[in-house]
Every structure is written in structure tokens, then in C-alpha cells.
């Protein structure tokens, strides 16, 4: 058996250095993103007093916004959530709700709560919509700027497209019926459009985790740290990968992902690129990639901007089972979109998207779970067979988990110096414990789920392709199933 031992040892030794280098690069890339984001905050946080938000809130010249709200079986919350959208602080916005073939009383609740009457105006039909439209309603006499589309079930993306077709304002924003919005959300994300109307075509804002915070009438009234460790880890994860990561990508003008839970777009651009792809699992990622390609293919001077201000709150999965489903789905979406747009990879015409952002997503997002597991196997096996001396094994652990934890800690420091949203000492302790726990189990678990999602994407594509989106939307009944899709892929 000694030949087997030798072979294994050789393989382990041969792989250990490339793995160490991969982890070094991956963590360094994240560190660079976090530092870029901190530079952004240093520059812009001081200005926040002068962002002119009050002036925008009061000005009849602020660009009009159509808020698109797809709803499936939301009878319990629809009244509150539509009202909370109507009540958002903004001088000119309309709300378009799509009842996506709900089997509960969503439609009746809407009709009664908002005194709806049939809206028989023509339907533009600029986008192909699969679900047949049963009827369109609006509030009597136009007292409330609300339109409701009643259509047959066809999934979230298709519902958004139906709403987009009837939108009448210059900007559109897509919102989930069950998400909780910041009163100033529209002001925050529309500001880049108002400041630079000729160039900005899409913006996104920060999505935060609502678990355990106090919610009243569709608004957050008290921000609290989640109770379960698994949700606390996600707080840290959202902070590092989404808020800081996207701030950095946005500053690099290479932002490829805006959360579908609150993305704002110029309506004409969205119509021109064809709206959401109803067959895509990562439809938000897919859309922004399509817009970025549209920008570069047409050599257009346009921008996709991330606004690191909270706009929407989502319930993060608090059980392993739901989290697993979410991560499988995300990774599958990531794979499918990256594969679909593989032609943009490393092509000079796509600028920083092709040269930096996409290689990053391929190497350090898509392949990350594979390398993560490989590294783990390497360390365990190497140790067991004695192929790795203690030094090398420790070195591997330091560059992967040690370094990774330090990067996350840096992100926590950036947040402490800028937004500091969880003010109690206890919250700091909880955060630090979450930082540690992320490396001790959470990362490994998510790596396994992500691999499963990728595998599902590679093997099951032809069979479940069209149904998957629908299953995710209509089939998931627990509240946090959808929540999973509020954010997506680092």
C-alpha cells in the first residue's frame, strides 16, 4: 500500500501550493473590495447631510417612479404592503400591483381596500407576457395612484414584465410584496438618476436583514440584531459581500448585480433590453448583465450605480433547510448567468466587466465552493497521511480561514466607523462571534450547498429549466423561501 500512500502524498503536495495561492488571492481580492468601499465611505459619508434629499422630496421636478409589486397569495399582507409603498416619501410615484394568479383572496382584498374600478385603457403590449391578463383595475377617480393587474399565474419575473408594460413614469423599481421598505427608499435610489439623468440607467440599494427587528404597519420601528446565530452570520455576510462588495464594484464601474428585491431602472432602457427573463433563475443578475452588455455593445456612456443606503428589509433564512435551498438556487443562478454571458469574459470591448468583474465572479464566486471543499479535504487528508507537515497544514488554514476571518473583521471595522447600526455592546459581541462562526462550519456548509446547486445546473438544465422559477415563486410557501432571493450572489 505504500505506493498508494506515496501517490496520495504527491498529489496532496502538488495541490497544496496552488490551493494556498488561490486562497491568498481570493481573500486579497475581497480585502481590496472592502478597502475600496471604505474609501467610498470616507469620501461620501461627510456629504450625506447635503445630499439634497429634502429638496428632492419636496420638488415636483423629481423624476416620476413606477413601483412594480408582483404578488402571489399575499392576502394577509397585501393591504399593508401596498399602503406602505403608497406612503413612501416621494413627490411623484405610482404603484402597479400584479396579482399573479393568487389562489387566495389577494385580489378581493385589493379591490375592497382601494376601491378599485376597471381600467379599460389600452395595453401597450411592448413586452411578451406569458400569463394572460384577466383584468386591469385602478382606484376610482384616480384618487390613489394605484393600478392592479389581475393575471394568470406565470411567476415573478413575468409578473414584473406585465407591470413594466403598464408603467407610465420615467423610472421603475421592482419590489416584493412581502418586503419592508425604508420610507426614504425611493429618494435614495432615484438620487443618482436625478443627479445624472443622461447617464445613470440602473441603481440598487442595500438590502438588510429584518429578523428580530420590530415591524409595525409595514415599517421598521426598531432595529435589532437577529437572535439565531445563522441569521447573525448572514448579517455579517450581507455587510461584507453585498454592501461593501457592491459599493466597491459600483465605484469601479463594474457592477454586475443589483438585488431584484429593490432595483431601480430607467423604464425606456428596461423596455429596450426586454425586461426580465422569465426563464432565468438568477433573473436580477441576468438583467444587469444584459444591461451592461447593452451598454458596452452600443458603446453607450451609461452607468449602473449602487447606493449603500438601506432601502429594503428581508427575512433571512433562519433554518438550515431554507438556507440550503436558497444557496443552491443562488449558485445555480450564478452558474447559468455566467455561462450565458461567457462571451463577455476577458473581451476588451467589455472593459472592466470583462477584465475584472467577470473573472472575479468565475474564479472567486463560482469556483469558490469547489476550492473550499478541496482545501478542506487536502488539509484533513494531508494531516492523516502525514503528507503535509504541521507547518504547511497550519499555513493553509491561516491563508484560507485565518485571512478570510481578518477580511471579514475589516468589513466589521468599516461598518463600525461608518454606519454603526447595531449600537449595543452585546451586538458587537454577537457580531464578533458570528465572524468567527462563519469560518467554523457556515462556510463549509454553504460550500456544499453551492456545489449541489451548481451540479443541479449542470445536469438538470433541460428538464427543470422552465419550471424552476415558477416553483420557486409559487411553490415555496414558507415566508423565508422567497426571502432567499432578496439578495443574491456576492
Amino acid at each position: 500500500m505504500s505506493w498508494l500512500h506515496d501517490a496520495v502524498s504527491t498529489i496532496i503536495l502538488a495541490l497544496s501550493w496552488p490551493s494556498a495561492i488561490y486562497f491568498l488571492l481570493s481573500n486579497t481580492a475581497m480585502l481590496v473590495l472592502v478597502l475600496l468601499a471604505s474609501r467610498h465611505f470616507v469620501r461620501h459619508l461627510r456629504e450625506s447631510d447635503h445630499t439634497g434629499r429634502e429638496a428632492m422630496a419636496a420638488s415636483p421636478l423629481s423624476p416620476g417612479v413606477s413601483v412594480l409589486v408582483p404578488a402571489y397569495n399575499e392576502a394577509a399582507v397585501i393591504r399593508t404592503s401596498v399602503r406602505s409603498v403608497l406612503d413612501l416619501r416621494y413627490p411623484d410615484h405610482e404603484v402597479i400591483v400584479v396579482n399573479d394568479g393568487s389562489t387566495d383572496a389577494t385580489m378581493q382584498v385589493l379591490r375592497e381596500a382601494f376601491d378599485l374600478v376597471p381600467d379599460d385603457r389600452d395595453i401597450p403590449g411592448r413586452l411578451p407576457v406569458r400569463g394572460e391578463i384577466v383584468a386591469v383595475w385602478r382606484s376610482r377617480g384616480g384618487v390613489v395612484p394605484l393600478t392592479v393587474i389581475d393575471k394568470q399565474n406565470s411567476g415573478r419575473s413575468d409578473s414584473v414584465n406585465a407591470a413594466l408594460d403598464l408603467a407610465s413614469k420615467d423610472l421603475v423599481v421592482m419590489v416584493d410584496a412581502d418586503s419592508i421598505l425604508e420610507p426614504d427608499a425611493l429618494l435614495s435610489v432615484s438620487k443618482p438618476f436625478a443627479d445624472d439623468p443622461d447617464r445613470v440607467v440602473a441603481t440598487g440599494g442595500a438590502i438588510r436583514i429584518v429578523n428580530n427587528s420590530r415591524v409595525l404597519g409595514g415599517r421598521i420601528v426598531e432595529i435589532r440584531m437577529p437572535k439565531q446565530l445563522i441569521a447573525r452570520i448572514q448579517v455579517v455576510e450581507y455587510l461584507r459581500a453585498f454592501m461593501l462588495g457592491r459599493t466597491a464594484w459600483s465605484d469601479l464601474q463594474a457592477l454586475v448585480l443589483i438585488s431584484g428585491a429593490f432595483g431601480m431602472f430607467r423604464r425606456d432602457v428596461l423596455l429596450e433590453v426586454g425586461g426580465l427573463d422569465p426563464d432565468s433563475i438568477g433573473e436580477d443578475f441576468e438583467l444587469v448583465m444584459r444591461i451592461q452588455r447593452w451598454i458596452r455593445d452600443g458603446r453607450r456612456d451609461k452607468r449602473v450605480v449602487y447606493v449603500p443606503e438601506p432601502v429594503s428589509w428581508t427575512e433571512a433564512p433562519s433554518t438550515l433547510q431554507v438556507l440550503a435551498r436558497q444557496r443552491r438556487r443562488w449558485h445555480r443562478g450564478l452558474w447559468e448567468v455566467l455561462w450565458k454571458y461567457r462571451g463577455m469574459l476577458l473581451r476588451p470591448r467589455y472593459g472592466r466587466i470583462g477584465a475584472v468583474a467577470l473573472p472575479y465572479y468565475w474564479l472567486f464566486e463560482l469556483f469558490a465552493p469547489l476550492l473550499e471543499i478541496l482545501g478542506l479535504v487536502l488539509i484533513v487528508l494531508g494531516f492523516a497521511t502525514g503528507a503535509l507537515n504541521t507547518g504547511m497544514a497550519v499555513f493553509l488554514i491561516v491563508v484560507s480561514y485565518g485571512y478570510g476571518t481578518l477580511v471579514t473583521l475589516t468589513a466589521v471595522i468599516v461598518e463600525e466607523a461608518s454606519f454603526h447600526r447595531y449600537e449595543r455592546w452585546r451586538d458587537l459581541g454577537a457580531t464578533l462571534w458570528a465572524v468567527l462562526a462563519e469560518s467554523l462550519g457556515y462556510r463549509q456548509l454553504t460550500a456544499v450547498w453551492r456545489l449541489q446547486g451548481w451540479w443541479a445546473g449542470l445536469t438538470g438544465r433541460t428538464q427543470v429549466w422552465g419550471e424552476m422559477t415558477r416553483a420557486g415563486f409559487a411553490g415555496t410557501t414558507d415566508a423565508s423561501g422567497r426571502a432567499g432571493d432578496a439578495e443574491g450572489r456576492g
Partner: protein
Amino acid sequence: MSWLTDGVMQAVLLITAGITLGMLASLVVQRTLRRRRASVRARLDERIRPLVLAATVAEDDETDALLARVRALGADERAHVRRTVFAMLRDVTGEAADRLRAVGDAAGIVPRVLALSEDRSPALRADAAEALGLLQPPGALALLCRLAEDPVPAVRTVAIRALGAYTEPEAVERVIAALATDSGVPNNAAASALLQQGLAAGDRVRLALEHPDAGVRRGAARVAGLLQAPGVGERLVGLLDDDDESVRLAAIRSLERLPVAAAVPVLLEAALADGRDGEAAAATLAAMPPAWTTGALARIEAQGVPAVRRAAGIAREALA
């Protein structure tokens, strides 16, 4: 791997541990300092706030005594008075605002703001511009006009916004200049300031509609309809075939609030051409007096694409 000796490993681990400890310490220090600052502020607030509030409702004969009390305060306390006054000035107008300004004066806010307006830090100059707009001390207009030409766009933007409160010709002039495409001030911010200046800017708005810079024409066109300035309607019609799309769109939308019969044929043409402004043109037509638009709406019903028909309020064919 020969270099990976125990010594090197120990060094790596020690460095990592050191960095980690440093980071943890920085977290604790930041939080401690911030909380201490907050509690100092809260204690100051307990004493200062009632004083400032009382001033807003003080009778004339009480004011002097109150202001004397403010003047007698220590430096930290006066700084807190300034912050409190500044925050409250955003909320009130009229007599109460005048009283707040007097309190701010007594706390030395004006010299401080004047000094800030020449500070090297753009953020502080922007603070100064905002404060000048709220406090409106003597000489503020001239200073704001200067800040409106600051090298940093963010400072210019705050200054332009503040100038919205002034109706003097030089203020209107600066605001209109800020509408220009390359001014570095968001068109929206400048146009909102122009709107705030209101009818005092009316004549200049009319002239600005014919300005060679498309940004100025766009901004003026957007404001014109809201201001309802006399004699503007005809000029807006002239902008309906402007070379710049955003100017055309602004003119179309402005006409929705300021209907002019002469605009109908041009709007109809735009609506039937189904460009980006087709929907807006149809919506404007639908908002005009029916006596003018019956023919135009009938043509849209017959020839318009569905999106334009919807904007004009026309029913689906199957239903009609």
C-alpha cells in the same frame, strides 16, 4: 517548502494574532469614544434645548434676557446651541425662525459660518453654504454667489440650492447659469432652486427658454409650466421641435399644466411618431381642454400605437 520552518510559522501566527488584537481593540475604542461623545451631547442637550425652544416663543421683552443667557454660555455649550438652532431652522419659518436666528447670532453662529465658507475642506464649505441659506445673515447672498462658483461641484450644488431662497437678479442669474449642461450642478437641483425663486424669475425663465445651452432650455422648460409665468406658453410650443430630446420632453410635460391650443398639432405629430416622447405628448393632449383636442384624440384612437393610446386614455379595441 524548506523556508516554512517553525520560526517562520511562529512569526506568521504572531503577526496574525497581533493584527487581530489590533482590530478588536480598534472596534472597542471606536465604540467607546462614540458612546462617550453621545452621552456628552445628551447631557448638553438637556440644558441647552429648553433654552433654544423657549426662545422660539419668547415675547419681545423676554428675548434680550434669553439672548444674554446664551452669550454667557461656555464654548461647548454655545457650539451645541449652534447645532440645535441649525437643526431646528430646517423645520420652522416665520417669527420662530427669526428668533432662532437671533439665538444663533448670540451663540456666534454667523462669524463661524463666514469663516467656514472659506475653509479648505469642501465638506465644510458645503456646510457653510447650507447654513448661509438657512440663516440668511447680511452679506449671505454675495457669499453664496461666490460659493456657486466653487471649484468643487458638490459645494456649488449646495450653494445653488440655497440660492433658491433668494429672488435678487444675481441669485436668479447664478441659478440659471447652473442649469447649463457642463455646470457640474445636477439639472434637477438647479431647476428646483429656480422653481423656488418663483415668479421673481419669470422673465429670466422666458429668456432661458431660448438659451443656446440645451441644459438651460431643459431646466427652464420644466420650470415654466409649474410657474405658469405669463407669455411662456407660446415659447414652449417653439421648443416642441427642439433638437434635444430632453428639451422636447420637458416642454411637452410643461404644457400639460399650461395648455396652449397652438401646441395641439405638434403634440399630435409627436404622439403618432411614437418616439420616446410619444406617450408624454398623448398624456399632455389628454389633459388639455377637450374642445381643442377632440380631433387629435380621434386620430390617436385610429392610428396610435397601444402605448400612446393608453397614455391618451383610450380604451382597448376589444372593449371599445
